[in-house]
């Protein structure tokens, strides 16, 4: 009997309070880290780059960073809205590129003014958004596949009217004619002018877009229902939410913002370049996903997306100033994304 060392072997390891406390301490320590990590890193970068390169700390450079990220941030906000309904829009890059071509074609070939061209671009975006929504909501094509298909479609469609050539004044059309129009100065001002001469117009447009969509998603009934659709579509439907219409809205917003972003690109570049917008999709998606880590939101959020885009913009700007070669940029963006996702999903297990 006494040969059996008994009950302690059967009972669980000691569950004293001291054995329980450490994980709590870790959690308490991690919470602010998770919450403010992106801001702390952003601050560290600002200080570090400013210290290494005095020109970094200047109004002009700050505005050039913001101008550089404005298009990506606008597209990212659109991605965020589709992610709120648990969807995904792969076609935004192609929409932006098609918008560049549409704007250029409208002005150079059709010789239309700025307003008509801008409206043409925005309506193209809305139509593509509706097509996406039709495929996804009505025909039940999975969102990734549907938007992948429209991405392909648009990528090809934008080449057809000009037989694959970039658009600028003097373009030889497929039918042999010459396009004699030019970019209207008002349209170019969209991308090149600055409000009161200090804040570039694209930055102002980004600020307006971000503010409107932040308020829409976080403080209105529509926003709550968009998130409800993405969080638990069945629950949203059983609560009487028009989930199909909400999804349509999300894809139209996303495509519309992508078209707006494309118009800004066209206005800055001043020509219809067939290769424009190629990196926009990945950058915008990355901004949205980095946004998950901002303030520990762990969900798509407009504020986080804008911060995420700025974060990447500052990093690239600083590295460029320090003469990092341009071909390292994608690697840097990828590394930031991996880090942000690891922080969102790895460090922050809620249960």
């Amino acid at each position, binding site marked *: *009997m*006494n*040969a*059996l*060392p*008994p*009950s302690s*072997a*059967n009972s*669980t390891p000691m569950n004293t309070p001291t054995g329980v406390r450490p994980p709590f301490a870790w959690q308490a320590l991690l919470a602010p880290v998770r919450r403010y990590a992106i801001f702390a890193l952003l601050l560290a970068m600002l200080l570090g780059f400013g210290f290494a390169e005095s020109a970094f700390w200047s109004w002009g450079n700050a505005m050039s960073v913001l101008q550089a990220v404005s298009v990506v941030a606008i597209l990212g906000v659109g991605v965020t809205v589709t992610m709120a309904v648990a969807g995904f829009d792969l076609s935004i890059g192609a929409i932006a590129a098609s918008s560049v071509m549409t704007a250029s074609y409208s002005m150079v070939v059709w010789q239309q003014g700025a307003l008509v061209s801008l409206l043409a671009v925005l309506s193209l975006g809305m139509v593509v958004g509706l097509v996406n929504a039709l495929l996804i909501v009505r025909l039940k094509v999975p969102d990734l596949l549907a938007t992948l298909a429209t991405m392909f479609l648009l990528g090809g469609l934008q080449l057809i009217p000009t037989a694959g050539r970039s658009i600028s004044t003097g373009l030889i059309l497929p039918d042999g004619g010459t396009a004699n129009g030019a970019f209207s100065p008002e349209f170019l001002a969209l991308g090149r002018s600055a409000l009161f001469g200090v804040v570039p117009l694209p930055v102002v447009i980004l600020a307006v877009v971000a503010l409107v969509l932040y308020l829409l998603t*976080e*403080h*209105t*009934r*529509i*926003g*709550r*229902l968009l*998130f*409800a659709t*993405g*969080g*638990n579509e*069945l*629950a*949203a*439907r*059983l*609560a*009487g*939410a*028009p989930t199909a219409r909400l999804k349509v809205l999300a894809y139209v917003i996303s495509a519309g913002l992508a078209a707006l972003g494309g118009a800004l690109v066209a206005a800055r570049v001043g020509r219809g370049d067939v290769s424009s917008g190629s990196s926009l999709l990945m950058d915008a998606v990355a901004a949205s996903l980095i946004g998950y880590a901002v303030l520990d*939101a*762990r*969900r798509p959020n407009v504020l986080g997306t804008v911060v995420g885009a700025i974060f990447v913009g500052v990093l690239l700007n600083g590295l460029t100033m320090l003469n990092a070669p341009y071909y390292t940029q994608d690697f840097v963006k990828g590394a930031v994304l991996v880090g942000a996702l690891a922080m969102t999903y790895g460090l922050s297990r*809620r249960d």
Partner: protein
Amino acid sequence: MGVWLAGFQCAPCPATSKKQIFKLAFLHWRAAGRSIASTTLSSLVGLLTLSASPLIRIHGLEKSFGATRALAGVSLQVQRGEVLALMGANGAGKSTLVNILSGALQADRGWVELDGQPYAPASPKAAAQHGVVTVHQSTDRVGAAGQRVADVLLLNQWAAGRGPWFLSRASVRRKAELMASKAGFTLDLDADFGDISAADRQLVAIARAVAVDAKVLILDEPTACLSQAEAQRLFAVVRDLQARGMAVVYISHRIADLQAIADRVVVLRGGVIVADLHRPVAFDAAVEAMIGRSLHNARVRARQLTSDVVLQLQGVQLRSDSAPLSLQVRRGEVVAITGHLGAGKSRLLRALFGLGPFAQGQAELNGQPYLPTSPRAAIEAGVNMAGEDRHRSSLMPAGWPGATVAGTIALPHLRRWFPAGWLRPAVERRVANAAISRLGIKARSADAPIETLSGGNQQKVVLARWQSEPAHLLLLDEPFQGVDVGARADIIAALRADTQSATLIATSDPEEALEVADRIYVMDHLGLREARSDGEALALAA
């Protein structure tokens, strides 16, 4: 014997062979036997009991999930060739016990012995290697459409890395035929697994169990989706396996099944065994043990209401070949529909909430024809529904906007409360705080994340959602799933106190129906009839 067994339990693991048992007995005899002869005798008795050992010995199993004690010390023995029926209401601990035996869960405390060997499988695969095979109610995970039955039969062997590299159709068929004949029944081996009936799929799973020479077969609600004839065929198979010495643990809510097949009935309630009845089994006693009181006392005081009729079904058919349904629910009345899984309860509620049409006939709401085409239309007509499985049907994921107590309650009412579109959290909080105090919801605040609440409190929040605006009819599908007794009483009180709307509840647990309802209907095969007495409700639903 008591002393001996106590020493036995203290051992880190139970004796692993007969030799060890003798050694243990001898040690014990040396230690204690010299003084008191009777102890020696009892230890010998203990030894004898062990040598004619049962196939499964379960001792003092405990398992908790958070604050919920699913198993609170279960000890049980199963003999070879025995068909043991496991009964118990939802949450009684049946599934936990079965999941521990089948390796899906690990016990917190206690041990299991299989054939005299310690048995603590880390996974269902490990359990199968020990000869314990579980056949679940849903057999769609046994194989997949597009596979032949013969392939599905051999799937396990291939997955385990046994079997040849090259598979010819003929060799597969030969092996599969061998398996089917060993199990003692015929299957169409060339049929597509996706095309065969649920009953045949179950037989495929059973044949796989027989092929690995399983000692224990666990059948979880095997007849839930089976017709009468199919069930009879299953019983014949089970009796055959029993005759070969296989122990069968059979879980079912259907008393008729258990009467047909069980040698012994073990009833669980609140994680402990409350009855262990041998053949001939008195099933009334089993049911009373299951619900924990006499059948006559389970009932709430049924009210005979004469208020106006809110919902009226007359000659409504759920399927064109199903029986016409008639149902009446009056204002302020609580009516329950009970019946086993798949009887059509959810289907009826879903149809009333605009999620599927009736095949024939229509409902009347307050005397007006009522044909909702969507949940939105139903809600606008004053019909609300809290669906089955609140996580799937009502709640937002953790950390998501609207995943608080206040947000959960507000979701369907946003349009009414915030016509301008601008959310005002103070309004949501006010309604939530009122609900928290009215229903006794245990939550830190109106802004507490919904996932931090216990199941019962989450269900109260879901109820508060639908009671926070006036409605004509409230439909509740399995509202007491994962709800503890205290919260259940609060919810029942809240439902019965509501005099403005009618309540229609679907529950597969007749005990719950008795606890909450003024009148009970029993549903079976999409047909509906009102239970004239409580016993009838229990018997019909069981």
